[in-house]
């Protein structure tokens, strides 16, 4: 089999290098005039053009609005060393704005019944499109001003998906190679994109994603007649998985271990196709296990004017929140699917209550002694997370835990945890533990 490196001799990941605290050499205080002189000398090292070109605000607004339901706000990318994501602002809906999230174009030929850019939408906005140069310039300007941490680039399909995908990649290439942009880039892969384009996107971005939108092929067919779930979406996810794995194993590609440092993700529109929470979670378990997805995002369906689903009921936002909690239990707490299943009702839906507490009531036969419980057992107690479980394990090596307040000092949410704990033979039994 031909090695992946042989296909890509001409192509290497962009020279992304951030000078971190550890790498920079600090010079004692120097005069302001000397700094000015030095800046003049090293002006060719500076990134990008300084000012944004004249941009039509209507275009910026329309293409920005096109992504407001996309929920990826993470900028965590262990490219150099793990750094926390930074939220540069929050909107009045309490959501983080850390990336310049935009569509490349809002022109789309797909017929998704929930989307205002779909070809069948009766209140479709005027079509706008950026050029790669224009979009790269705006991104650089916002990044230099510290308004954003990077770019989240999605798009409608335009007249031709391939040419739009090419333009999106060109935008990112300009940023990385011409303007030495070291910020975070999340690039959406359009359904049906070619293998070549997917590989190029992976070389340049920190994260790529392709939206599943629905939990299965039959559900997708109910809300979109122009996308083939298996061929256009899942098959593309497998390309991404296989190419990333191939690069990791190919020793002829030095530095490729850092390819796509933030992995691949996906997003689902919750409730548009009438699927149950259990069906969604089943799909996500498959995605984590088989596709190697880094994480999934959920967006509660909200009917938009002019779309085919305009008259449908909006999904409550708590449904989205409960799905995120379940996802967290799967991914971070490592709950097994058979444990997760206990949180669903008979119809396969999650009630509007904490799923971890619901699972704990069914799983735990009796209260646990924090001095004897294993790490996995501690994690299954509501109010105890990975950090506080680790702290409990560390503290009890020094001295036994003898009181509730000791546990609370370790960051445990004691009110939620205490019905499930027995400390020094004493337990705080409440009806709450046994009620639904």
């Amino acid at each position, binding site marked *: 089999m031909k090695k992946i490196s042989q296909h890509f001799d001409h192509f290497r990941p962009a020279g992304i290098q951030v000078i971190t605290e550890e790498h920079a*050499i600090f*010079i004692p205080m120097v005069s*302001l005039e000397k700094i000015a002189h030095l800046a003049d000398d090293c002006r060719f090292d500076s990134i990008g053009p300084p000012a944004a070109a004249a941009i039509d605000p209507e275009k910026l607004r329309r293409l920005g609005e096109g992504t407001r339901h996309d929920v990826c706000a993470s900028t965590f990318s262990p490219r150099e060393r793990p750094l926390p994501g930074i939220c540069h602002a929050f909107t009045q809906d309490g959501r983080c704005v850390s990336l310049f999230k935009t569509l490349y174009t809002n022109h789309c030929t797909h017929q998704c019944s929930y989307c205002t850019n779909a070809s069948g939408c009766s209140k479709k906005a005027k079509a706008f499109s950026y050029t790669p140069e224009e979009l790269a310039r705006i991104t650089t300007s916002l990044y230099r001003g510290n308004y954003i941490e990077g770019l989240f680039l999605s798009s409608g399909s335009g007249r031709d998906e391939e040419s739009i995908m090419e333009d999106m990649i060109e935008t990112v290439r300009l940023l990385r190679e011409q303007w030495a942009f070291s910020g975070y880039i999340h690039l959406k892969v359009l359904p049906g994109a070619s293998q070549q384009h997917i590989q190029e996107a992976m070389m340049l971005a920190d994260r790529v994603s392709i939206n599943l939108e629905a939990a299965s092929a039959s559900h997708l067919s109910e809300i979109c007649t122009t996308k083939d779930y298996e061929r256009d979406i899942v098959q593309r996810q497998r390309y991404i998985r296989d190419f990333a794995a191939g690069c990791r194993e190919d020793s002829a590609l030095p530095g490729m271990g850092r390819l796509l440092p933030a992995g691949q993700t996906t997003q689902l529109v919750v409730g548009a196709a009438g699927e149950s929470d259990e069906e969604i979670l089943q799909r996500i378990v498959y995605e984590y296990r088989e596709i190697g997805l880094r994480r999934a995002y959920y967006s509660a369906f909200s009917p938009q004017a002019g779309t085919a689903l305009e008259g449908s009921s909006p999904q409550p936002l708590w449904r989205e929140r409960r799905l995120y909690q379940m996802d967290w239990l799967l991914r971070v707490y490592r709950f097994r699917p058979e444990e997760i299943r206990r949180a669903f009702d008979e119809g396969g839906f999650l009630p509007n209550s904490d799923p971890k507490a619901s699972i704990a009531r069914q799983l735990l036969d009796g209260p646990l002694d924090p001095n004897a419980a294993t790490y996995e057992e501690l994690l299954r107690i509501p109010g105890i997370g990975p950090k506080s479980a680790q702290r409990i394990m560390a503290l009890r090596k020094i001295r036994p835990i003898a009181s509730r307040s000791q546990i609370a000092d370790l960051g445990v949410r004691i009110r939620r945890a205490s019905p499930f704990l027995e400390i020094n033979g004493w337990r705080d039994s409440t009806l709450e533990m046994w009620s639904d």
Partner: protein
Amino acid sequence: MRVPDNFLHYLSLHRQSGQRLLSEAQAFQAGEIELAVLPQQARIRKMVFEVMGEVHRMKAFVRLEPLGERVLYGFLQPRHRIGELICEHFARRNEGTIVVLGSGSESWTALLCGGRIYRDQGPGLTETVERLKKALPDCGGGMEPGSDVERLWQVYYDSQYCRERKNVEAFKRNMPRQDQESAGLRLVQRRRETTLDDFMGRETT
């Protein structure tokens, strides 16, 4: 948040820290501070987290205005002694560009050039920027707030709001007013400029 190995550095940047506290803190490891149950250790952890929290929020909320091609400047009036640290962060992020941060009374300047960080500390922001303008005659421009980039940002920021998800409590929790003021964010400033007319016959956006 976790107590980092270099927690003493963060502790030294706290506005209430002094030599006595620092020498006491030297006796502890980061792990001990992390699991602190004694009041003194818990106080150190709280102080370290206060500094780390402000560092994180200033990295997020400070906005930089261009002054020609080689200078970026912004308002910063932190509660703790983190001005230099934040300035260096932005210098690393913008190699080859001079970054000046500060307020009316003090300012910090940093430049990353050839893998080296050059720093200066001086009087108020306006004075430092004026000196830079003299030293870099072609840097042009003035210190007028509200650049093209700011206007672009405002359009984009407004486009991201989902009315059906309105949650002002979460907004306030995530963007504490105190931190917005420290970073000179205009979200706060605009509220302060609001007059009675704004509440009469005009809908808030």
